[in-house]
């Protein structure tokens, strides 16, 4: 009843249960964090806008993205994955979401940023529906914890519009 094997087993089970409990509590503590992120995006330039040989529209943009995501970081945060997506509807598709740029914020010190960039990923439609198209630019973030539940949310910035003609 008190052999080494039994004691080792009891100790191990106890240790693992406590560890799991601590991970769960760490994760629950993230729920008490009140978040107040801000963000602003400007489309500085439409670099070019064409219909590709396969019939799909493609546009290249230069963007200015500034944001303050410091309030998302807690002691249990490993990194925040942030990305900007263009969102729009077309006659055939109820919703299109195309990620234009993404980045990884490794710590709170890097969470207030400003960048000037062309779109990292190609903005291609399924079809030729982009002329004169209104779209939203939504900044999404994904808080990845050191352990536990991941949180995601977004800020929608609307009012953008593509040119009526190719250029």
């Amino acid at each position, binding site marked *: 009843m008190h052999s080494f094997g039994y004691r080792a087993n009891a100790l191990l089970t106890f240790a693992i249960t406590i560890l799991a409990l601590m991970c769960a509590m760490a994760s629950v503590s993230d729920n008490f964090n009140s978040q107040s992120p801000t963000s602003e995006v400007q489309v500085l330039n439409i670099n070019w806008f064409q219909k590709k040989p396969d019939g799909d529209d493609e546009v290249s943009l230069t963007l200015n993205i500034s944001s303050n995501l410091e309030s998302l970081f807690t002691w249990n945060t490993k990194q925040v994955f942030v990305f900007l997506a263009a969102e729009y*509807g077309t006659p055939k598709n109820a919703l299109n979401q195309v990620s234009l740029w993404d980045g990884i914020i490794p710590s709170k010190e890097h969470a207030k940023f400003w960048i000037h960039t062309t779109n990292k*990923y190609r903005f291609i439609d399924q079809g030729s529906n982009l002329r004169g198209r209104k779209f939203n630019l939504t900044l999404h973030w994904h808080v990845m914890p050191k352990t536990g539940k991941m949180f995601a949310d977004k800020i929608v910035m609307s009012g953008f519009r593509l040119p009526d003609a190719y250029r």
Partner: protein
Amino acid sequence: MIWKTLMCVTGSESPVVVVLSESMEPGFARGDILFLSMSKDPIRVGEIVVYNVDDRPIPIVHRVIKVHERKDTGEVDVLTKGDNNSEDDISLYAPGQRWLQRKHIIGRAVGFLPHVGWATIIMTEKPLIKYILIGALGLLVITSKD
């Protein structure tokens, strides 16, 4: 029993997976465990999904970067990419396949535990360790007194 319960609760075939590659670093490293869930909610950009490619035995865990959802059927075309990869996943899909559909996706990652899955990786990549472990357990069973 616990596995089947988890399957029912999360609605996914495979409620817990081990991260096998470095394609999602620094967020997920090899040996981390991911908890999955599969609700009826539509697939949206930014979600981390686990998907199967036809004829490939090992599921892949990457992030959705493009979504096109049809008005009439509600079907989606989805493109994924690993955070740490420079290219999207087109080269990982079946030849000629440009998009993933909902049927390929077995779950969304909702939570994770670091490092716990290393035992699984070691046992898969160095089967000798698996045999030694099973041998030792077998010996324990035979020699224990009750």
